[in-house]
């Protein structure tokens, strides 16, 4: 029993951190309509950013996380302005698809630049807190606990930001119609930049939170990127709440899937597949994910 409890808790924690990654991805998708292939490498950059901030400035690890988010926000903004924004002219026929290429290029560029710049040897920022929380049968390393709690705080903050602030509403408006947003005085291109910056910051934050847990490597973003894709669709595109729910669900299903499949080796090999299967089943029942907006057209 305690075995399943442990698996569930572990899945939950990892799921929450991936949810943070997913929230950034869904934000970028819903506002820019860009499926950001580069999200995993932004996550990776965030991890390294926090590492260098912490080791160079000798600040506490959580400050490093905050610093990484700021750094990635700036990176996202600059990248969007330099490379993505110029595509939003009327010259470009199918912006969304072209943006995919740009972000795909970004991920190839960053992963390999990471290899050259950060070197091939593993790095890891210091723990948030060493040791583990032990409650009866439950063992939860503090690093994971703190990362999960921080992720929740960031996610709730993001949800509130999008719901309550006027900037958040503007992002939502632009996500539905760029032209209509301009009609009511919102600069859509600026919102694109903001959304990409925020999305990058969230990816970076997630990477920074993971860094002490899984260590850093230039390819650390590959797996979470796929997971994040699954989570956003599971929860429903454009919904932060959906990302949270999707992340938790994914974590639990993957954790427990491992536990319940009798053949241990198969079970482990199929860990990722459980999440994907969950997604497939969900979409067959609800074609817009759990909390996705159904398709509405203006009549």
């Amino acid at each position, binding site marked *: 029993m305690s075995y399943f409890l442990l698996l569930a808790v572990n899945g939950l924690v990892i799921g929450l951190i991936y949810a943070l990654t997913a929230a950034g991805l869904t934000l970028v998708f819903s506002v820019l309509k860009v499926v950001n*292939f580069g999200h995993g490498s932004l996550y990776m950059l965030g991890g390294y950013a926090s590492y260098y901030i912490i080791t160079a400035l000798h600040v506490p690890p959580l400050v490093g996380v905050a610093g990484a988010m700021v750094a990635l926000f700036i990176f996202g903004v600059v990248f969007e302005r330099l490379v993505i924004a110029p595509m939003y002219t009327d010259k470009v026929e199918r912006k969304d698809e072209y943006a995919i290429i740009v972000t795909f290029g970004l991920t*190839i560029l960053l992963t390999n630049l990471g290899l050259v710049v950060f070197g091939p040897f593993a790095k890891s920022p210091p723990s948030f807190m060493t040791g583990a929380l032990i409650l009866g049968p439950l063992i939860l390393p503090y690093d994971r606990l703190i990362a999960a709690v921080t992720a929740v705080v960031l996610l709730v903050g993001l949800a509130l930001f999008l719901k309550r602030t006027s900037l958040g509403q503007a992002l939502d408006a632009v996500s539905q119609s760029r032209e209509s947003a301009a009609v009511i005085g919102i600069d859509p291109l600026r919102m694109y930049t903001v959304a990409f910056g925020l999305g990058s910051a969230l990816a970076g934050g997630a990477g920074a939170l993971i860094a002490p847990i899984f260590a850093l490597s230039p390819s650390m973003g590959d797996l979470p990127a796929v997971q994040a894709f699954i989570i*956003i669709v599971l929860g429903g595109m454009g919904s932060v709440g959906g990302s949270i729910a999707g992340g938790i669900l994914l974590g639990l299903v993957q954790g427990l899937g491992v536990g319940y499949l009798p053949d241990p080796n198969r079970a482990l090999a199929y860990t*990722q597949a459980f999440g994907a299967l969950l997604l497939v089943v969900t979409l067959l029942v609800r074609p817009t994910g759990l909390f996705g907006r159904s398709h509405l057209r203006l009549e």
Partner: protein
Amino acid sequence: MTRSSLFSRATQAILLMAAVLLPVLGIGPYWTHVGAIAWYYALLAASWALLAGFAGQFSFAHVAFAALGGYASALCIARFGLPLPIAIIVGIVLAMVTGALIGALVLRLSGPYLALFTLAISEIFRMMLIAEEDFTRGMLGLPVPGLFPGRSDLPYYYLGLGLVVLAVAGMNWLLATRVGLFLRAIREDEGAARASGVDTTRYKILVFVVTSVIAAIAGIYYGHFIGILTPNMAILPEMGLVVAMAVIGGIESLPGAVIGAVVVYLLSESLRSYGEWRFVLMGLALILVQRFAQNGLFPILEQWSRPRRIGRSTAKTASIKEERHAG
């Protein structure tokens, strides 16, 4: 649609000639090998362009279909000892059936939901390839027998080229019929297409079947050529590469996608001498091409060659007519 200008047909002919002649003109075994791999990507990119560019079905399972074909054929030989032609047919039929199945499953899905549904399917399939190690050899890699005796890559090169020409010609023929029109109508507005009497279900499934079969053929070709298959041929970055190729070539042109695939693959090969910087440059090149050739390379090629505006009545002539009415 079949507005392919005289030039573009001429360029295509010239490029095709070049593709046929280059190996015998002595580009050497290495570049022949590279070219043969490029045909694999060209098949994938062109069929994906049909699926995504024309029919609007942004499937991310395309490389998984290549893996399906490749593995099916290889496993038929390795595990069941079937003769090669039968194995290949099994691979193709399997892709046909699976393509129809996926086409039917995604009927209600659109946009990112379709894309990521297919990604999930593709991941599950890849996971199976990894996990069912006893059968597929998983990450160890599955050895595949060759198609031709000897160690020259030339026969593969011409086989690949032939497949590309056949596939593109076949798909272009399909596009020139009413099916092409319907596929684009489905891409634009499925509801309106249905209201216009188009059986959208049928055509969506059809396009999945056609493109899946081509992808599977590509995979079969690749497996028997390379001699080893691993589940990694269906990872997301591979899919991304195919998308990049199709889009860079111009997603609404099948020859464009072929050109895109060849250009991107040759680029990545020729950057090899830059060692660890190779992929950095590759990423940079992708970004820059996109930044400055935003509608893809093929349209640019076409534009260069085409005399300014032909055959398209413009609003200018429109207003002249209007004046006549008014007068």
